[in-house]
């Protein structure tokens, strides 16, 4: 290697020191200290202005991972992985030639020499230095604060440490601080299954964002979730045991709260230590003093985000002002005029599942302002608007229902077009149709994180040809910050699309221009019982008369099967033309496995089975040499049946009183249950009987996707009902019905639809819910995604199925009644039909010959597929017909 002068940027700096001020020839070097959300936004702002192409950019990051979404940290407990929280894609860093040093924080700065030295010893010369060091959690100076079991809640690493400790040795956790971060932390502890306490010094929760009324609504809702809240209470000491680990806390009221784990979340402080050591001016109460361009007292040094004390004398702890500062600093470096003079502190959050929003002058600090308040303590809803004497909306607080946040915030500062009380009253209390975003002026800011106006969003549709929300998000960045505006964004995009006459193709597939929901309505209204008729009459022009496709055939087959008794179709999925529509699993009434063999799941309602029946399953499995496994749904799966064996196996099972378990269908699978009140000392209802009743009621119901259910006999929830499409949990007064839960790849906790239902009320509500889902869901859309997708979400579903807002409940119930009355066991029907049985052969010309590719080898005293048989390719199998 020879050293020579180069005029181009070099990237060879990792771990080596470059000469002070010799930042790679004449290239201007920008060093960013800190790669959090604001730091990343600064990099993106540089890239947008083309500065990454003309400048060398070096980033020193303390954490071992690049910027991630700290705002959504708690979503780790609802299944988001650290990778999914990432805000940085490796492509971006690479494409812009950014030198990113992870796990290597800046330790000192020599302002005279203009160099930064990192912990590893790496020294980088800079022309411009940007500090984005963020903040650190404030830990009150109480005795014992450093004991084992005490944590803060700020980084992914904090979260992983809390998780590890909680799993190993904690059943109870306490959070010091009932503000925004404290509630986030409490949500995390609850997510870890700990009995959770919140200790807040102020007389209410979230004292900064909400007033007394909002705090009360929040308190009630959070206590209803089973969290214990201690407001107006200080923490005096952390009590430890003999091993030095936390055992409790001494509180200011003299009591002691036993706890295994403490999370301090009592606010944050700007991380200005590096700036202090550099000799930069800092505020009296901390924060690096900056001007409106985000420059510190050294013009070569900028500070942005939570570490900065802005020109208006405030330290901003929210991401939106941080982003604005990042953009301001980048613009200033590019010599464009920009300034940050202060920001709106509006926030909308979902804390512990509760919507909390505050915007504008939330506490009514303006002289002569008046409040308009709507409070429904029973539902945990509190809404307050602050109105000026001139009628202008100045600000407000929303707790429990913040749907109107996007619209209200955009109206802040102007006189809303309708009376203020109508903006907060619920629809059921006589409020007119909610004020849509169409009423907003183009200058209204829709996304405050990225400062995107309604006009810009409209432009994305009209000028940049965006046709959906993801495209608009990509084009404008709106909705990519905190996400609170996505709902309004969706409404705006749809309105704009409709206005510009853009046809959006929501068709089911290449054969049908209609959605599944529209096809359902056509089939129901016109009593269409044939796929061909539907295709030829309602298919796309060029698909009529054709053979359809693998997408619409099973979807239409399912709709016809769901509605069979009502429209006069045969309810049997293998009847006539319907047989040709079914996926292979439905066609053979069994589940196809990787080597072409099938598995069989007899129905075991509620997971309850007699010894005699258990023995039959064992005997059948033994006699046919099947692999046997217990399923997650409290049933038994028998694997390795050849297609010609299916009728023989089912003849034995039907004879012993079994029926199809529909494990192969997009239909009800199982209703799991715990043993319930009959045996369990905690049980409060007979969960097994209810599970059996429900499973027998909904068996065979064809739906857009599979349906899973469970019934738990008490709040301990042993049947895991909250992870099911419809889950039932017993209460001492009846049953609570949860809907839209899911396990699998995208877990979702079910939402509570209704409480303390009687048996009859429960069944009626499930009837309506399932039929409404079947009617309106897309193909292969589980209830969880359906609930998230449909406009109005859970509230809308509740209005329709509980309050009958559409007046269709009677129809939904009668459709279900018809289904229940029309149910027949598909397998019993099939083994009694010689023509249908003829299909269960491997070869049409050699009905007695098994498929030679389906072979098995032993494993753990059972069989498994002989995979080498599948890899023999196209070579002819010599004499295979005899094998």
């Amino acid at each position: 290697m020879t050293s020579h002068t180069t005029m181009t940027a070099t990237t060879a700096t990792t771990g080596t020191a470059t000469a002070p001020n010799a930042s790679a020839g004449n290239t201007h070097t920008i060093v960013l200290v800190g790669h959090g959300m604001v730091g990343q936004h600064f990099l993106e702002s540089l890239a947008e202005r083309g500065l990454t192409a003309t400048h060398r950019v070096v980033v020193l990051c303390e954490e071992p991972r690049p910027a991630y979404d700290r705002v959504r940290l708690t979503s780790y407990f609802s299944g988001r992985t650290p990778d999914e929280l990432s805000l940085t894609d490796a492509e971006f860093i690479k494409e812009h030639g950014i030198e990113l040093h992870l796990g290597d924080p800046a330790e000192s700065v020599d302002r005279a020499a203009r160099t930064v030295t990192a912990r590893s010893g790496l020294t980088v010369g800079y022309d411009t230095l940007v500090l984005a060091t963020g903040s650190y959690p404030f830990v009150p100076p109480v005795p014992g604060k450093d004991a084992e079991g005490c944590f803060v809640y700020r980084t992914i690493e904090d979260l992983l440490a809390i998780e590890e400790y909680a799993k190993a040795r904690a059943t109870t956790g306490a959070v010091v601080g009932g503000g925004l971060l404290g509630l986030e932390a409490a949500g995390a502890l609850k997510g870890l299954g700990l009995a959770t306490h919140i200790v807040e010094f102020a007389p209410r929760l979230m004292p900064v964002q909400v007033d007394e009324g909002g705090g009360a609504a929040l308190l009630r809702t959070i206590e209803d979730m089973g969290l214990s809240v201690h407001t107006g209470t200080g923490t005096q000491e952390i009590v430890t045991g003999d091993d030095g680990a936390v055992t409790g806390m001494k509180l200011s009221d003299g009591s002691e709260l036993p706890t295994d784990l403490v999370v301090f979340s009592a606010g944050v402080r700007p991380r200005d230590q590096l700036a202090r050591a550099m000799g930069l001016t800092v505020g009296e109460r901390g924060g690096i003093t900056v001007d409106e361009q985000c420059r510190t007292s050294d013009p070569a040094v900028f500070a942005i985000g939570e570490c900065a004390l802005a020109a208006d004398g405030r330290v901003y702890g929210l991401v939106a002002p941080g982003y604005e500062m990042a953009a301001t600093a980048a613009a200033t470096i590019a010599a464009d005029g920009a300034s940050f003079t202060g920001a709106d502190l509006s926030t909308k959050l979902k804390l512990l599942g509760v919507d909390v929003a505050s915007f504008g002058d939330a506490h009514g600090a303006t002289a002569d302002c008046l409040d308009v308040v709507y409070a429904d303590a029973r539902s945990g809803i509190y809404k307050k608007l602050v109105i000026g004497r001139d009628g202008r909306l100045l600000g407000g607080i929303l707790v429990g229902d913040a749907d109107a946040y996007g619209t209200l915030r955009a109206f802040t500062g102007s006189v809303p077009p309708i009376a203020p009380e109508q903006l907060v009253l619920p629809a059921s209390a006589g409020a007119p149709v909610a004020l849509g975003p169409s009423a907003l002026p183009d200058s209204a800011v829709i996304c405050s994180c990225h400062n995107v106006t309604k006009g810009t969003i409209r432009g994305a549709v009209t000028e940049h040809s965006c046709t959906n929300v993801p495209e608009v998000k990509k084009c404008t960045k709106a909705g990519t910050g905190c996400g609170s505006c996505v709902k309004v964004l969706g409404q705006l995009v749809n309105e704009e699309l409709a206005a510009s006459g853009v046809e959006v193709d929501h068709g089911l597939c290449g054969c049908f221009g209609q959605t599944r929901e529209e096809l359902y309505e056509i089939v129901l209204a016109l009593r269409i019982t044939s796929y061909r008729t539907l295709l030829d009459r309602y298919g796309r022009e060029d698909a009529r008369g054709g053979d359809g496709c693998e997408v619409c055939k099973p979807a239409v087959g399912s709709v016809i099967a769901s509605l069979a008794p009502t429209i006069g179709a045969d309810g049997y999925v293998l009847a006539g033309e319907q047989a040709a529509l079914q996926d292979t699993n439905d066609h053979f009434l069994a589940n196809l496995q990787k080597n072409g063999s099938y598995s069989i799941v007899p129905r075991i309602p509620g997971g309850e089975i007699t010894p005699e029946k258990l023995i039959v399953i064992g005997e059948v499995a033994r006699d046919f040499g099947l692999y046997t496994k217990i399923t997650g749904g409290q049933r038994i799966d028998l694997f390795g049946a050849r297609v010609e064996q299916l009728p023989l196996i089912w003849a034995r099972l039907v004879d012993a009183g079994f029926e199809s378990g529909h494990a192969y269908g997009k239909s009800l699978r199982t209703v799991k249950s715990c043993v319930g009140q009959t045996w369990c000392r905690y049980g409060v209802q007979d969960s097994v009987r209810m599970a059996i009743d429900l499973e027998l009621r909904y068996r065979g119901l064809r739906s857009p996707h599979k349906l899973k259910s469970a019934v738990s006999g008490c709040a301990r929830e042993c049947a895991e009902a909250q992870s099911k499409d419809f889950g039932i949990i017993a209460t001492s007064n009846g049953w609570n019905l949860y809907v839209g839960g899911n396990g699998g790849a995208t877990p979702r906790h079910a939402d509570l639809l209704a409480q303390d239902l009687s048996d009859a009320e429960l069944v009626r509500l499930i009837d309506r819910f399932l039929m409404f889902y079947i009617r309106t869901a897309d193909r292969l859309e589980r209830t969880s995604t359906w609930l998230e997708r449909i406009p109005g979400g859970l509230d809308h579903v509740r209005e329709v199925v509980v309050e009958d807002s559409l007046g269709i409940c009677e129809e939904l119930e009668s459709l279900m009644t018809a289904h229940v009355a029309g149910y027949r066991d598909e397998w019993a029907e099939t083994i009694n039909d010689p023509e249908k049985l003829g299909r269960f052969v491997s070869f049409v010309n050699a009905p007695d010959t098994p498929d030679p590719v389906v072979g098995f080898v032993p494993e753990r005293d059972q069989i498994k597929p002989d995979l080498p048989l599948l890899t023999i390719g196209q070579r002819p199998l010599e004499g295979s017909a005899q094998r």
Partner: protein
Amino acid sequence: MTLAPETTRTTTALTLQLLLEDGWFTVCELSLLTPGRGVAALLPDGRQVALFTDRAGRTYAIDNRDPFSGAAVLSRGLTGTHRGRPFVASPLLKQRFDLESGRCLDDEGVRVATYEVRAA
């Protein structure tokens, strides 16, 4: 090549025949096929063929082995029309195969063997 069944014959049931190296091989009666679904046939040398018929009564034959999984299951897939051409979707991982050319519509490099078939 595919041929429409001759509808003038009434005396005997039509059979499906495949052209093999040594001439036409009779598989089964045409009536055993359901439009939109397939059946599998075993050839004398051990090969497996998937046979299909569509709404118009045209017949098709391709190798029964799904090249993606190795399992002999293509006869159990759903058929359809894509841009005017007939296809079958594998019941395992849903890749589609053109019933006339054997080409996989979802992976250009993959093709299955096709057979000449007729109803006679």
